[in-house]
């Protein structure tokens, strides 16, 4: 775990994992977590991705090992986006592959829209153009009443296929996500719940993959419909899945990310495609 200081003075944590061939030139791929998440949530994604990419995994402000900003400071989408782009400059990756889950995908989309030169390719998991088309604002009173963990436990079937995934993973998720600072998370979700850029996504220039959890529990399918207007888009549905596909079906997600970001048509721009004879 490493730290850097954002331009407004907040300390942010991140990690870099790179198991690519040292004599090749690997492209950078950044993994952007969801609200209440942290970089650690990608534990099962990183080994396979880091064979092909230099993987940068931040903790957003107020999440994981990053500092929680003071309550009186305004929390804006622009500030959260700047945290990511400042980090990417800090690690020497002005251009990179962007992968985002839910709210992390919102940041990726804003970067693809506002600073398109930064994004080589983008893939989004359970990430519509903003959270306005969802029930997210109704979460906040439940969080206030039952606590973050209590809220997540009560709504767990929105996120995990209970009975069809590892119960220890679910418990760990509840402890990790439920362990966030509730006041900050309320600010974070209120901010996200106010966002809707459906009318802008047609301007996204990079090749984009949109993965939709089939059951449409958090943001139903209509929320994703505008993304069909992205000029170079692959829309994928994981059938019959609740929201947190990245947590309970990581192998499928990673396979799709590798296929999309390092697949036959994506390779040839770096050392990542240089397979040894035995692979």
């Amino acid at each position, binding site marked *: 775990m490493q730290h850097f200081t954002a331009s407004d003075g907040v300390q942010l944590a991140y990690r870099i994992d790179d198991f690519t061939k040292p*004599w090749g030139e690997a492209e950078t791929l950044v993994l952007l977590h969801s609200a209440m998440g942290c970089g650690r949530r990608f534990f099962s994604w990183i*080994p*396979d991705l880091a*064979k092909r990419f230099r993987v940068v995994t931040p903790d957003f402000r107020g999440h994981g090992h990053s500092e929680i900003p003071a309550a009186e400071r305004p929390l804006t989408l622009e500030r959260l986006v700047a945290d990511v782009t400042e980090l990417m400059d800090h690690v020497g990756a002005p251009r990179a592959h962007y992968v985002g889950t839910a709210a992390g995908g919102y940041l990726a989309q804003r970067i693809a829209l506002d600073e398109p030169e930064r994004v080589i390719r983008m893939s989004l998991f359970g990430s519509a153009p903003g959270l306005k088309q969802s029930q997210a604002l109704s979460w906040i009173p439940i969080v206030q009443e039952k606590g973050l963990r209590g809220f997540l436990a009560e709504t767990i079937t929105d996120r995990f296929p209970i009975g069809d995934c590892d119960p220890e*993973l679910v418990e760990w998720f509840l402890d990790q996500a439920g362990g966030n600072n509730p006041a900050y998370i309320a600010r974070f979700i209120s901010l996200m719940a106010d966002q809707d850029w459906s009318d802008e996504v047609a301007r996204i220039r990079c090749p984009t993959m949109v993965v939709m959890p089939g059951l449409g529990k958090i943001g139903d399918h209509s929320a994703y419909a505008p993304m069909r207007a992205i000029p170079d888009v692959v829309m994928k549905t994981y059938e019959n899945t609740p929201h947190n596909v990245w947590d309970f079906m990581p192998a499928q997600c990673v396979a799709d990310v590798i296929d999309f970001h390092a697949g036959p048509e994506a390779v040839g721009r770096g050392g990542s495609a240089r397979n040894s004879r*035995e692979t």
Partner: protein
Amino acid sequence: MLSFAAADGVSLHYQVDDFTNPWERPETLVLIHAAMGSSRRMHLWVPHLARDFMVVRPDMRGHGQSRIGPDDALSLERLTRDVIELMDHLGVDAAHLAGSSAGGIVAMNAAMNYPDRVKSLGAFAALPGLKVSAGHTKYGSWVDRIGSDGIAGFLRKTISDRFDVTTVDPGFVDWFIAESARNDPESLRRFVPVMAAADISGGLGDILCPTLCVVPEADPIHTPEQYALLKQGIRDCRFVSYDVSGHNITDAYPDRCARELAVFLRHVRG
């Protein structure tokens, strides 16, 4: 990179990669590099193993960022203690050990002398001490040539001992030589004779843990008969020979070696 102080005060560096399930207490796997190497030379192995193990990669003393210490400090026993003390430092009672060449000798020696601390052993292109092959390979001349040609010059002139250069990536060869040359020639001048004088073949019968030995069939540095000592001497030995030439299988075929180890470890854990 992390560091700790060995019992003799020498500062030793190591890396840890752990992508195991956060709700489980992981088993530990220590990967020990070869002479003239460093933890960086095992880095392509990590993604194959770090979902299942906390993978610890030390820089052996006198290699990478680890200092060599005073003249009398270097022995096979000391190098072995360094691994055990690193495990102590990490609070690890017992670990799986795997090593490449000289690193494999250290791992073997640990399995013989600290059987309670070693759950399984992986030895890649490793003999039970280099004295076993001293009639065949003139280690004394290595020291002289490292002195006169430098590490890079020595390796460049003898590169066909290491890999089949007609099949490996040319970028890899340059990287291997540059990476090896980051080490201090003076440290290697002390390290190579220690390994060249070591013969622990008499202790092979003391290795009780499950063992994987992977060897190159056509190794210019060690002969098939020398490698055969391993399967003759180690009780629970899975012996695998790769139909390749060149000593450095762990560098030339990292994915294959790491997968071999991963499959073996899965079997060991049942």
